[in-house]
């Protein structure tokens, strides 16, 4: 493992981990709780996510450059937790890859390829993920940075082109809902924001792991702005009621962009761009699962057999384990709990134990397990 990630690349990876699925699901879910006050919930959620990002970043910054997370944990004061933490996180990353892949293919099936069997779409996507994971994290990070750099101007442009159909009055009355309801609305976005915990995986791949805290906070800030603006756009254009009846309001929003009579239906470009970000997210989680498995279990063989086996498992899992369309409860309530447990509770518990037991100083009784 050769460290190669820069701070900017790490920030881009954090954005790519949170943004693609959150962008599709968050507007509808949050508006389901607090309608036109969704943007307040999002801002509050982003504020909480800043704190979480800072804490997770501080913990991840303890990592050694070039030493995988489980190995680093194994050399620390909480080495007895290393196998459990490594396997739990590997299982979690695999689970996110599986869930996200299903969401991804469902979206494609609903929006553009209704007649193509999902099993084929999933198979092709898994092949892409296997190729990405085989090449390692550096290519994923490099592409993420390019995509992030390109998304800024595109996002700005789409906002400008929608200005003429926005109605500012649709967010009125402001703060119409009770504060506890607004806070509750922020829980689902916090679940997505909590995916910033990916920094635990990224830090050892960084040239300077100490910079991971800054990357985590910047990543959350960028996604927070993106989600808040997207929710506001949806509110201004459709209003809260219409958004709740839409499956993917962000996609519908871009579909409204028109420039004269010659540029219209640009959702194809949005779709293509979004697909790229989704691939990056899936690749990173799939790579994370593979990487954690091979480093935790200290597998004596090369990555290829594990890659093929995991790829097959992912394909079959997503093809046969999920219902035809994932229901709303699964994507919001259940998923949010899982996200918060694995991204916040588990790493924070690990961090607390790590610092209580004396940090990097090995505990009494031996060195390597």
């Amino acid at each position, binding site marked *: 493992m050769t460290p190669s990630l820069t701070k*900017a690349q790490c920030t881009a990876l954090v954005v790519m981990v949170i943004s693609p699925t959150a962008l599709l699901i968050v507007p509808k879910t949050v508006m389901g709780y607090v309608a036109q006050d969704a943007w307040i919930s999002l801002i509050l959620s982003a504020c909480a996510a800043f704190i979480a990002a800072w804490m997770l970043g501080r913990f991840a910054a303890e990592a050694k450059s070039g030493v995988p997370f489980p190995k680093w944990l194994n050399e620390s004061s909480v080495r007895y937790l290393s196998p459990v933490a490594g396997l739990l996180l590997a299982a979690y990353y695999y689970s996110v890859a599986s869930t996200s892949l299903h969401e991804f293919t469902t979206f494609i099936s609903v929006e553009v390829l209704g007649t193509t069997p999902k099993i084929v779409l999933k198979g092709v996507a898994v092949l892409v993920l296997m190729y990405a994971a085989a090449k390692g994290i550096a290519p994923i990070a490099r592409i993420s940075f390019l995509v992030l750099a390109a998304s800024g101007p595109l996002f700005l442009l789409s906002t400008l082109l929608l200005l003429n159909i926005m109605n500012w009055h649709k967010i009125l009355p402001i703060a119409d809902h009770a504060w506890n309801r607004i806070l509750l609305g922020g829980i689902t976005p916090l679940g997505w924001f909590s995916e910033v915990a990916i920094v635990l995986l990224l830090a050892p791949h960084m040239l300077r792991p100490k910079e991971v805290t800054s990357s985590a906070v910047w990543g959350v800030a960028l996604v927070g702005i993106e989600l808040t603006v997207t929710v506001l756009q949806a509110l201004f254009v459709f209003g809260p009621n219409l958004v709740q009846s839409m499956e993917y309001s962000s996609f519908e929003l871009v579909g409204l962009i028109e420039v004269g009579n010659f540029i219209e239906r640009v959702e194809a470009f949005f779709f293509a761009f979004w697909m790229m970000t989704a691939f990056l997210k899936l690749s990173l989680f799939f790579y994370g699962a593979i990487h954690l498995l091979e480093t935790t279990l200290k597998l004596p063989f090369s990555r290829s057999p594990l890659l093929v086996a995991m790829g097959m498992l992912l394909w079959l899992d997503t093809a046969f384990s999920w219902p035809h369309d994932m229901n709303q409860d699964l994507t919001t309530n259940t998923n949010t709990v899982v996200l918060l447990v694995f991204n916040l509770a588990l790493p924070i518990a690990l961090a607390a134990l790590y610092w209580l037991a004396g940090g990097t100083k090995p505990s009494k009784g031996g060195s390597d397990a």
Partner: protein
Amino acid sequence: MRWFGQLLPFFRSSGRSQQGRRKAQHSSSGAGQGPARSADLNAALSRSLKKNLADVRRLLGDSADLTVREIGGSEGDSVAAVLYLESIVDSELVNRYVMTPLMEWTVGKLTGDRIAHVRENLPVGRLQELNKMGDLVTYLLNGYSIILTDGVAATFAAATTGGERRSVEEPSSQTVTRGPKESFTESILTNMTLLRRRIKSPDLRVESFTIGRKTGTFVNLLYLEGITLPAAVKEIRDRLAKIDVDSILDSGYIEEFIQEETWTLFPTIQNTERPDAVAAGLLEGQAAIIVDGSPFALLAPSSFVKFFQSSEDYYSRYDIASFLRIIRYISFLVSILLPSLYIAITTFHQEMLPTPLLISLASQREGVPFPALVEALLMELTFEVLREAGVRMPRVVGPAISIVGALVLGQAAVQAGLVSAAMIIVVSFTAIANFVIPTTNMSAAARLIRFFMMILGGTLGLFGIMSGLMVLLIHLVSLKSFGIPYMTPLAPFIWNNMKDVLVRVPWPIMKKRPMVSGQHNATRQADSMRVPSGSDRKREGGDR
């Protein structure tokens, strides 16, 4: 063995050329020529003139173009001989500077301490003393005249290389409207001259290799000391030294042997027939490889963006150069994606088209018996056939291809309802866009990728295209060229090197060399160089 240093005395040979020399020795010993012959070549020269002549004749199989001119003594026996291959020497040089002095000398000067006399009095600039049969044969095969004398187990090789050569002409594949009009030739000496004229720096290093057991091809590795990354030079040197094949007939052979990744469609080593492009590459920290017999030099390490830069970008104004460069990138994307997008949208995503356009396309496709994918594949393959025919066909019948291709096939196919007019437009525009890419190997890569994309677009629509693009991107950012990331300075992103990537900024702003240059000596302009402004001009005028 210093023979190559003598062969090209005006090159500054560096201490690192030892490897190349060793390689030359290895190849001249003829690894694949059989044990008896190998032993013959390694043998020392005999003191007997007759034996030496007999050995040479035997080793060359009594070759018809081997000329042996014996010089007789008073007793009628030969005391010296001049050997050369008539086909590759300059007869004028041989007669005037080798034969005439030897004939004019008395027999006494060819006996006794003859070696010293020949060394001191033969009016030839490049004269090499040899004492092995293998070296003698190597020099003979490279156009040298060999002077053998009786009673001495040594010989001299005089540089008389000649034979018919193509003169320096205009480049045929990388033409420019403004800029130098010279191109490399098949002669490594001529090519070195073209480069030496452009870079008059003592830092230009030349290392020589002889590669190819049968062809014994001269290969020169050039770089600028202090500018080219030493690690990259070492890597190239090592890879060149490892090549052990029987023949090298063009730089294309070397390219495939030393490239970082074989299983890729993308070129990771540039080739050019322009000396100015090679000089620019050297000044930007690349190393050049020149192969005798090939008018195409190689430049490495190379990045993806280098294949979109044309020599003319630096000779014309920065504004038009930048505009054209953007056009090239767009053309590359069009070349890869346009047919596949057309297929995907007309097959799977019709709702994405504006209604009038959709109606127009649907009416054109009405009656076409093939799906869009088959239609596009047929048209693209037809174009590739026409293109290949155009290249191979004698020039006088070339225009016929245009007529047959454009009028007969295109128009007739539309009229017969086999393909739609829109498809003809898409395929034609794609083909034209492909020609905009300034390097042929990158445009070839685009042509091949286009077919994959068409199949993906035709089977899985936009999802297939994006999946293909994702794989392509991962592949591109994973590639390296002699340790340098192929997509640099885009990925990894290096802001300071972006001045000559998507656009070319004015020369005074490009103070630093781009990514491939070494850590030291990165600055190529004095600090005083800056973009002149109108007020500067006025001030200068006022001072006067």
